[in-house]
């Protein structure tokens, strides 16, 4: 009897996993053309792992979509290709042709870089393939406006988000019915915290990009931040000079475009050490990223209304 009682007490990780799987299956059952947005970060890694669990022994019945900016770390491209192959899923890579043509880059174009490659790129990719539901790895603990976003979050035909007009979500009943032109962004790991993500990666041996672990890497300083020189010739070409490169033991708390993602000096080489460092740190996760700071406190809310994921 005591055995039965202990079994009925699911841990929080088990409950979060079951919830995410339930959400993914609902989307597959109720939408016509779903896709999983895959950014190769740790949240994407967990989401992909959950998808493989949800449909096992079938491969997840939707493709992976990587909205590429061409400025990601080399290690990210490597893991992306490996995971697509391992999971048996189709990998779609989309690069906004207009951004490529205009040579949009993080150094010369600042906010426009994110807008053109990511926001516009995502919209173009979703329109091109006609996806009506897109899984995203956003979490409610990341940022204030996310805390109020539904798990099934509707976007207008022009991909806008209307926070005042969200559908109520009761129990675990999701209304996936769309009006013409609307699409849904679905966030299966909404209720996970950063610690939960790390714990899950730890428990399930989820493959992640090695950049999350500390190592000696070539770094340079730019506008007061510490960055990794992932592609020195390209950096030199865009900057017009060769930045001063210093080898340092660094790692990354979050991964994006390498010129926009701040490195932190660290010696954490194992997952428990990374988790330890994360828990003892006193700055929040997104601080290393430049994107949230635009437009003051409401930065993300404004970006989302414009169609950013």
């Amino acid at each position, binding site marked *: 009897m005591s055995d039965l009682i202990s079994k009925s007490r699911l841990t929080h990780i088990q409950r979060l996993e079951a919830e995410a799987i339930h959400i993914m299956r609902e989307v597959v*059952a109720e939408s016509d053309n779903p896709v999983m947005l895959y950014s190769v970060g740790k949240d994407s890694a967990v989401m992909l792992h959950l998808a493989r669990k949800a449909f096992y022994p079938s491969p997840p019945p939707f493709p992976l979509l990587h909205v590429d900016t061409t400025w990601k770390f080399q290690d990210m491209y490597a893991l992306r290709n490996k995971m697509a192959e391992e999971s048996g899923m189709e990998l779609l890579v989309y690069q906004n042709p207009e951004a490529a043509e205009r040579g949009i880059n993080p150094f010369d174009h600042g906010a426009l870089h994110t807008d053109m490659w990511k926001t516009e790129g995502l919209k173009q990719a979703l329109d091109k393939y006609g996806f009506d539901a897109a899984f995203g790895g956003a979490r409610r*603990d990341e940022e204030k406006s996310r805390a109020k976003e539904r798990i099934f979050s509707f976007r207008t035909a022009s991909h806008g988000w209307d926070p005042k007009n969200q559908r109520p979500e*009761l129990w675990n*009943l999701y209304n996936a019915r769309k009006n013409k032109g609307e699409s849904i962004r679905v966030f299966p790991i909404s209720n996970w915290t950063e610690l939960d993500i790390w714990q899950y990666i730890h428990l399930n041996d989820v493959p992640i990009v090695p950049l999350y672990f500390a190592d000696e890497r070539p770094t340079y300083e730019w506008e007061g931040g510490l960055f990794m020189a992932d592609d020195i010739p390209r950096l030199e070409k865009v900057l017009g000079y060769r930045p001063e490169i210093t080898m340092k033991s660094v790692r990354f708390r979050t991964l994006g475009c390498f010129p926009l993602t701040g490195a932190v000096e660290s010696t954490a080489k194992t997952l428990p*050490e990374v988790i330890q460092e994360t828990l*003892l740190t006193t*700055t*929040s996760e997104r601080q290393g990223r430049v994107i949230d700071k635009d437009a003051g406190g409401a930065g993300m809310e404004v970006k989302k209304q414009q169609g950013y994921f």
Partner: protein
Amino acid sequence: MTDQITKEEPVYVTEALIAEDIDAYLDQHQHKTMLRFITCGSVDDGKSTLIGRLLYDSKMIFEDQLAALETDSKKVGTQGQEIDFALLVDGLAAEREQGITIDVAYRFFNTEKRKFIVADCPGHEQYTRNMVTGASTADLAVILIDARKGVLVQTRRHSYLCHLIGIKNIVLAVNKMDLVDYDHAVFDAIVKDYAEFARSIGIESFTAMPISGFKGDNITTLSANTPWYKGPTLVEHLETVEVLSSVDADKAFRMPVQWVNRPNLDFRGFSGLIATGSVKPGDAVRVLPSGKTSTVTRVVTLDGDLDEAVAGQSVTVCFADEIDCSRGDVIATADNPPQAADQFEATLVWLNDEAMHVGRAYWLKLGTQTVSVTVQQPKYVVNVNTMEQLAAKTLDLNAIGVAELTTDRAIVFEPYADSRTLGGFILIDKITNATVAAGMLNFSLRRSQNVHWQALDVSREAHAALKNQRPAVLWFTGLSGSGKSTIANLVEKKLHALGKHTFLLDGDNVRHGLNKDLGFTEADRIENIRRVGEVSKLMTDAGLIVLTAFISPFRAEREMVRAMLPQGEFVEVFIDTPLEEAERRDVKGLYKKARSGQLKNFTGIDSPYEAPEQPEVRVDTTRETPEDAAERIVNLLLGAK
């Protein structure tokens, strides 16, 4: 004060353990259970402050966020120079400007024993829907009371809603004790007052505690300010109450099927989230509503097959036999399965700005089943402030009422009191796709179990074959005076001349007999069309070609009739005459009456007409004569055969 708060040590995160033995910490964290709770109270009750305090104490606020908080507190805060914890919690820009919480926000924190998800809900009456949403996933509710004010109307409302949604663990947090000098007598009086009320609405038990969210009394440690209170602290209590999923695990096995897993011919599994009970290989199960039985052979996951799975887990099960089972079915323990029915009494919470349309068909989603449903006029609505039961014709935004509903086919269910999954449902508007209501099934109505379909030997096909025609409904819709009756009449004459068996149902004529009890309110118009739809269906069963001429202003009801008939038998004919033209003709003098106010609810004047989006036939009477239109419709109907 600001300095004092920032330097205070976080209370629950065992920082020492993290620093010294991260593996031990991870092991501890891995085995935590999860509690979801809701906090109820208005901004004035210090709700956001309490949540801010819980996040702060569990170190869920980082230094940079704290710095931003300090700046914001001075700029827009309501606590003078002190930290306004509420700003941490009130997220959307519009809310920060207005200083109120208007939506459900979810917050997270950990203690050594549990992970917590807090649904932070607004307290005002106009946000009842948000509170019900937050409560629907909660194991526990914290009801905040301002010690200076005692039990208020809103306390009663919040308690009633939590009880309605089935939350068994209720905490009465008497907040702001610091502002009443931690007076024991004040606390006791409030608890006594609340106990009386709680009993009156059926709350069996609750836990009361004196706290101060702002000062931190009795939140994580027992406060020296309240020596007369022996505990537990709020956090201790949250860490130890039993969560819903472990209660559900002891019930009979039920799993709604979400998805059939069929990667190849050798594997066929059924995926779902276990609602109640547990399942293991060898268990005898029954698939509802078919009633077919089989035995579970495997419980499959990516991490290997399980010996047993329990409520709250997402799994895939395989059967020993190839029996029919698909999305919407429920797999249950063979000897104690749930029932199926199509008529129920339910409690509804209306969530939409547009009021309920009595008799209109909505989608009902319950578990993984989605069916068409119509709702009767409410038996009563509840005044959420006084708990009085009042008569009502419909349900408006935030209204809570009890009504009977009828689904178009039987659904597998359990009373909500027994299962949130098989008793809780949402209603979806068929046109706008909005989630318009949340509902809880109370019980099925006996009569639905006693009325059965009688199998008839002469089928509808046989009726039609004898007449040598294919039955159809030509549904003429358009404004009053648009020419519906004129054209329908011409079409019937032509069909009759061609030897077809037809019947024309005219709006005015039907209202002299079958529908003479109905007026022109929205509910009556819906019922009018429903009856005409049913009569048309019977006539097509008899093999007839039916022509109907009704204004039928609402898209939803026309779609309802379309759904009653086999694919292709419903032909929507939109007589598209502009309002100005119809009013100019004014054959019956009705527009004149409506304009002068003698006639109420007149379509096009003070009642809307929703034009068809994709009618099978559209007739523009300003460009086509009735004769030409009739000819075209006849050709289309007969040519298509």
